């Protein structure tokens, strides 16, 4: 488990050095590091599924438990490293035209490593440190193209998430005061029967919402669409925005009970966020901003699943993280191919691309169907589970809002597909992207199909993780 975190975090530093001698070795090495995380996470499946909880202790001034692997953590690590690996692979094709590649690979791998650290963190301070590493890495990555307007956007996203993180740190300090420890297991034991104070919950929630780009701290995410496409895929789809969701699960669902009122407030925030972003997506014309709005909207579904309570919804929320990561990653990477080949991001100025980019078009369509939730693709199951789980709860109006949002999802996503790929060509028709990029999107589309047809395995993992979270089994 230590290796899962350490290989990418420490290895990332090597990458710029290697890059000075041979770009090819650097690229391979970057992918290998992420794949090492994936392999490590895969190896952890066996032990955690047999009920073990692995932890790594060494005493420091702020607690002694550093890292911990349970089913939830391994699930999340698998999702992030899987999608992350494909994105790094895609970058081989995408980023090869630009400068500062050494910095790019360094930051991406560092980012993924920090994500691994965050996932396995068992201590509030460790969690905070990795949290900020991801923020710094994403700040540089969003501002990767150095023009002033773009750097301004990068600053914005950093400031918003940093604001959230500071609030969260305040919240953590309050938790420390109340529970007497930074270590999550100790906190959990101390808080049994004594929910957190409302103030602490509110502060930590601000941090989570800022990272997951949920109302009212969502606007940095569409603005961050100026980043290179693999980065937006990494940030928006697969990893960064899932950090907040994961932290919510790790902190509030697993370890720290919240006062009852928050079980209404959080779903309500999620519903508003989902609806507002879906509406905005319907009017947006910039391809990447649009997909970013869609991410905000879908994150609302995940929050609903995690916050509404109940086994079905929780398992659905976890599956949603996987299915959405894969499908949305695919959408962003397709957008990257389109953007790079046509030099145009305005969907009203595109059209007819299916003629020359059939693979990208089909991959985009499959990922679209998955996000909409059409069987046999993976998104169907997660969407059903979240809606069904929430329907068992008391908040019928909130569920109906989500049903309405699901309608909007169909409309705005099909609108994109139709405008970009169908109809009469409005730009010069460009050929497919490089084979590496096309293979990456095809792989993600295939994963979406596999996630549906082989639903048995992810579903089993998610439900087992849920049971562990809810304490139904050890």
């Amino acid at each position: 488990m230590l290796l899962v975190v350490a290989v990418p975090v420490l290895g990332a530093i090597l990458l710029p050095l290697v890059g000075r001698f041979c770009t090819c070795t650097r690229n391979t090495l970057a992918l290998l590091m992420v794949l090492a995380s994936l392999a490590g996470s895969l190896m952890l499946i066996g032990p955690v599924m047999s009920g073990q909880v692995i932890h790594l202790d060494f005493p420091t001034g702020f607690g002694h438990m550093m890292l911990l692997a349970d089913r939830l953590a391994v699930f999340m690590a698998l999702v992030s490293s899987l999608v992350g690996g494909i994105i790094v692979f895609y970058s081989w094709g995408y980023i090869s035209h630009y400068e500062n590649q050494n910095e790019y690979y360094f930051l991406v791998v560092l980012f993924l490593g920090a994500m691994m650290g965050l996932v396995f963190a068992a201590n509030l301070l460790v969690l905070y440190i990795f949290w900020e590493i991801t923020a710094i890495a994403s700040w540089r990555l969003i501002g990767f193209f150095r023009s002033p307007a773009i750097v301004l956007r990068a600053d914005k996203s950093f400031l918003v998430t940093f604001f959230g993180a500071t609030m969260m740190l305040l919240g953590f300090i309050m938790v420390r005061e109340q529970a007497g420890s930074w270590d999550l297991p100790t906190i959990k034991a101390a808080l049994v029967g004594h929910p957190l104070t409302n103030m602490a919950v509110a502060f930590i929630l601000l941090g989570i919402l800022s990272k997951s780009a949920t109302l009212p701290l969502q606007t940095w995410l569409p603005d961050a669409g100026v980043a290179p496409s693999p980065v937006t895929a990494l940030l928006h789809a697969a990893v960064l925005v899932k950090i907040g969701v994961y932290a919510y699960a790790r902190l509030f669902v697993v370890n720290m009970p919240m006062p009852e009122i928050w079980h209404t407030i959080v779903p309500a925030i999620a519903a508003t966020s989902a609806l507002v972003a879906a509406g905005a997506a319907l009017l947006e014309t910039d391809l990447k901003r649009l997909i970013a709005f869609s991410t905000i909207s879908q994150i609302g579904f995940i929050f609903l699943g995690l916050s509404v309570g109940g086994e079905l919804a929780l398992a659905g929320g976890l599956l949603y993280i996987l299915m959405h990561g894969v499908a949305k990653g695919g959408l962003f990477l397709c957008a990257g191919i389109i953007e790079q080949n046509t030099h145009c991001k305005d969907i009203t100025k595109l059209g007819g691309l299916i003629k020359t980019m059939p693979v990208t078009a089909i991959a985009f369509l499959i990922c679209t169907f998955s996000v909409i939730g059409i069987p046999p693709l993976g998104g169907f199951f997660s969407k059903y589970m979240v809606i069904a789980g929430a329907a068992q709860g008391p908040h019928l109006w909130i569920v109906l809002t989500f049903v309405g949002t699901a309608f909007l999802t169909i409309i705005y996503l099909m609108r994109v597909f139709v405008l970009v790929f169908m109809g009469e060509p409005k730009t010069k028709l460009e050929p497919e992207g490089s084979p590496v990029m096309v293979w990456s999107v095809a792989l993600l589309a295939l994963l979406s199909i596999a996630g549906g047809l082989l639903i048995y395995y992810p579903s089993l993992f998610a439900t087992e993780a849920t049971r562990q979270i809810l304490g139904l089994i050890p």
Partner: protein
Amino acid sequence: MTKLMYFAILLPAVISLLALGTRKLGKVCAATALLGAVVNLVVALKLFLAPAHAVHIPWTSWGLDFTLRLYPFSAFIVLAAAGFALAITLYSLPFMAKREHSGLFYFQLLLSVAFANGAALADNLILLLFFWEGLLITLYGLIAIGRPGAWKSAMKALVLVGVSDVCMMFGIALAGHYAGTMTISKMHLVLTQTGPTLAFLFLIVGATAKAGALPFHSWIPDAAVDAPLPFMALMPAAFEKLLGIYFLARITLDIFALTPGSWCSTLLMTLGAITILVAVMMALIQKDYKRLLAYHAISQVGYMILGIGTAVPAGIVGGLFHMINHAMYKSGLFLTGGSVERQAGTTDLNKLGGIARLMPVTFICFFVTACSISGVPPFNGFFSKELIYDGALERGGIFYAAALLGSFLTAASFLKLGHSAYFGKLSEANKGIKEAPWAMLLPMLTIAGFCIFFGVFNAVPLHKLIIPALTGSSFGAAHVEEIAKTHLVGWPVSTLLVVGTLVVLALALLNHFIGVKRSGSGIGAADHIHYAPGLHQAYDAAEKGWFDPYEIGLKLARALAAVTWGVDRFINWVSDSLAVGLTAMFSYIVRALHNGSLSVYIWWALAGLVLVIVFLVKVN
């Protein structure tokens, strides 16, 4: 034996992939598709003859299990679907040959068969939804490969059906929650509490929308023009009716006990009646062969919903009988339309006329199926409609009147269609038209033959297909006892109803002659209704799409989007301008205070000192 049900799902799916693999090989692909359809029919026949049984594979812990149930009802649907699939595949061989995307067409056709079989056999609600919603993909794909620009209709279909499927998903979630199980045959809910009633309503939206009822219907006429014609004969005419009405019947007979007195029953009947009338009014004024048929495909669903909604035995049996009858005659009608399209190159009624002599076999098929849909004795549509009338009259004269008015307009529009397409003056351009090839005629003739057979020998389908289907349903069995006492088979008992029907048909004929005389042509036979005061304006608005639920829905969505866009931009303003502005203002003020003047700093220090002293004094 138990594996047979898996084959019904897996074989078409696997062969569809073969068709996809060979899509560039023209004839090989078509042959693969034909093979797939034949194999599927063989499996369906074997299933039909097999004893009822169920298979169950536990899958997930949250309700989704792989549970299939073979019983007379599901076997009947699978068999019917297989029959249509084979007929339409055969028909497509000449029709789709040399067309672009014919490989994709066969691939999606077989995939639809696999999904439809799965949906019919599933006994787990989530599994049913899985197959059911999977049909969305082929629905979209099959329309999109039509003529250039068909993607607009494809998107319309996907959005409308997709929205209804999301409703159904919610309904399924609720139903499963209240019933405590997802196994359909074990679900028993009553319609007296709020929760289950809500579930019922959402499920009904899914089922009726799939069948093509209002308000999720408006993609069908558009698709009729844009999609490849065999698609119309396959999906809106046959599969979607079979599945939609099948599921509606399972909702009202298996999951919920719909009783004749309940408001849910009245609601269904009202929905049925409105669907009949609105769609048939639109059908009457169409000037395109395929669009006219498409509106009838909507209108006829109204009869089925009305029949099942009555919740009395005659109505239910009539509704189900009408389902299979409709699938046959509407599929047959679309096929005649395709044959005209292929041979004459157009389906515009203005350009057709007088082709009955040139395409006699097609015309005979059209005649039989048109008589069926209009309810002319002794064709099959007559008998099922009489049963529905019987049920409707039992529940209220108004519903009977609506159904009868619907029949009048149906007959009128088919007189107009037949007159303008097959009779009248043959134009110069159409002189060279020849009869369609045998591979297209054979399916049409078979279907027309079945229309006569199911009419004259209506005891066979009623006893072998419909009543066993009811026997296998939880709440249907009670109806069967009643049916045994009443007389549903053979010539209708109530002479009054028959007289009513005949009078209406005669009126339609009279109306047609008046119309032809006034306008001077077959195509103008309905003009006196079209341009009647009041109706004229309504028709104009409808033609402009003012009543199209899709357009209205999109407008609503856009209005909602405009509001949420404003919210989003406001929040953006708060973070981008307000927060930045406040920070700038604060630093401006602080900077103004730090002007470098020593005297000002001393004053500040003194003021601070005073505050400290005040604070200390207060504390002490």
